């Protein structure tokens, strides 16, 4: 049987399949359907300094092969996470990463410092790419100088594994991966959602209360794959790839393009057991191809035909 384990710097994941922030709650929502400890890791819901109500309903629109969301980082704030949610989930035998979000650099620092004190959280995913908040979020991830400033500040405040989640809403995403690497991030994850929009022609209204929202699902997969490949070429730190992965074949494509690990997001909404199927499918693929370790897949795209 092939070895499914992968490293993100010194952290050993039992397999390369993680759940994407905002699509898997705190894991508890999925416990009826699957053993959470089967996962390589979980990235839990975006967490901010204070409680956030998020955007008004409607927050979602189904689109061809995908969906737009405009949740707007609804969460109960970092103290609630530390005091109420963390004690409930810390015993789950998988790596739990907290997606750290904010409107200001000070807020990012505050959240990162508080998460830093949690023994069973080995890393954070710095979210500089949320397209659904008026302040902060994607604003940090689409300007080189802001990205550099926030990553630098959080790096100082946080001494465990720092993953930076990149926005695809930029001209050259590899530039942002290089900034993350230069500022001391241990990994980059990409892509967050693409800024999009949907309109109901009959009512002549936007389908989202915020008019624009973030597009996810298979519709974005080819673009996400391209961006993962570009970042893999640009940096030496691990790339965690995501964007429309619905099955094991999709995940393998992301590994070939340069991902050390993958995240599964929107697919969890349709099949709560999809992550298990992806893990199993990767293992079967490796066995079939006589590849001893999944690590060998990362970036092994054959570029010459």
């Amino acid at each position, binding site marked *: 049987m092939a070895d499914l384990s992968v490293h993100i710097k010194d952290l050993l994941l039992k397999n390369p399949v993680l759940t994407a922030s*905002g*699509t*898997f*709650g705190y894991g508890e*929502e*999925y416990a*009826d*359907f699957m053993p959470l400890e089967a996962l390589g890791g979980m990235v839990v819901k975006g967490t901010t300094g204070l409680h956030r*109500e*998020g955007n008004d*309903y*409607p*927050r*979602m629109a*189904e*689109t*061809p*092969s*995908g*969906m737009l*969301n405009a*949740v707007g980082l*609804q969460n109960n704030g970092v103290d609630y996470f530390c005091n109420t949610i963390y004690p409930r989930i810390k015993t789950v035998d998988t790596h739990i990463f907290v997606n750290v979000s904010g409107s200001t650099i000070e807020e990012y620092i505050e959240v990162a410092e508080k998460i830093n004190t949690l023994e069973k959280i080995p890393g954070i995913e710095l979210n500089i790419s949320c397209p659904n908040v008026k302040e902060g979020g994607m604003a940090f991830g689409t300007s080189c100088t802001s990205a550099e400033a926030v990553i630098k500040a959080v790096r100082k405040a946080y001494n465990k594994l720092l993953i930076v989640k990149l926005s695809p809403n930029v001209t050259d995403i590899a530039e942002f991966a290089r900034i993350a690497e230069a500022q001391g991030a241990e990994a980059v994850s990409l892509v967050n959602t693409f800024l999009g929009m949907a309109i109901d022609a009959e009512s002549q209204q936007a389908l989202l209360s915020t008019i624009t929202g973030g597009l996810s*699902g298979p519709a974005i997969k080819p673009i996400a794959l391209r961006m993962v490949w570009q970042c893999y070429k640009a940096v030496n730190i691990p790339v965690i790839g995501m964007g429309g992965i619905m099955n094991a074949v999709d995940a393998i494509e992301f590994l070939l393009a340069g991902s050390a690990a993958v995240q599964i997001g*929107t697919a*969890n*909404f*349709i*099949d*709560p*057991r999809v992550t298990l199927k992806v893990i199993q499918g990767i293992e079967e693929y490796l066995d079939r191809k006589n590849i001893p370790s999944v690590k060998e897949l990362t970036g092994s795209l054959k570029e010459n035909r």
Partner: protein
Amino acid sequence: MCVKKRILDLTIISKRWLNDEFFVFDLTSVEKLPEMLPGQFVQVLVSNSHSTFLRRPLSIHERDYEKNSLSFLIQIVGNGTRALSKLKEGDTINTILPLGNAYTIPDNDGRYLLIGGGCGVAPLLFLAHTMNKKGIRPDIIIGGRSKEHVLRSADYKKYGNLHITTEDGSLGEKGFVIHHSLLWKENNHYDRIYTCGPEAMMKAVAKYARKKQTSCEVSLENLMACGIGACLVCVVKTREGNKRACIDGPVFNVDELTWQI
């Protein structure tokens, strides 16, 4: 409600058209179906549709424990429900169930009213049946555009005192359900009112209930992605902040909501 949620393939054992836009599926499983409560729903995968992506939440319309079956009352409203309407007896549907909370089932033999319109009558049949098993015979008002759109009246009659309204007056009283004379009789009092249907209708019912100082439970039909509490798109504004229609609902007491009524 602590019944474990499951992913199950159900087989269509019966398909009946009620008119040109509404149909009923009865479904069963090789496995024993879990306990379900009136007001709960099921997330249905529409695997024969290329133009839809997410599951469709459907109310549990009936639940027959002897036959190990459940039913959906489905209205064709878009590509997903149109694709479902093409399925035939013997076809299977992948489902996640049972989901959401439930209507409050009273123990005492009080006076209860079930009131719904359009496809909103779907969960009320299961509710009426469940009340009936407890020896309660509620008043039921259902409405539709015309007599062809008054759905399953013979079945509602089995479980309660049925009253009908149609917008064109072709059956029962003319008007909307909220206009039915039963509601406006002097000294008419209920211990609780249960409603499901278009939001404007539910708000009218909620307003009536508030005026009468009667407890009122509504079932919301918010758009959902996951249906299991993770995605936070089906949020409802309540007096305690945002709640999820899929986990904290779909049934809410009107007093929990921030409706301007």
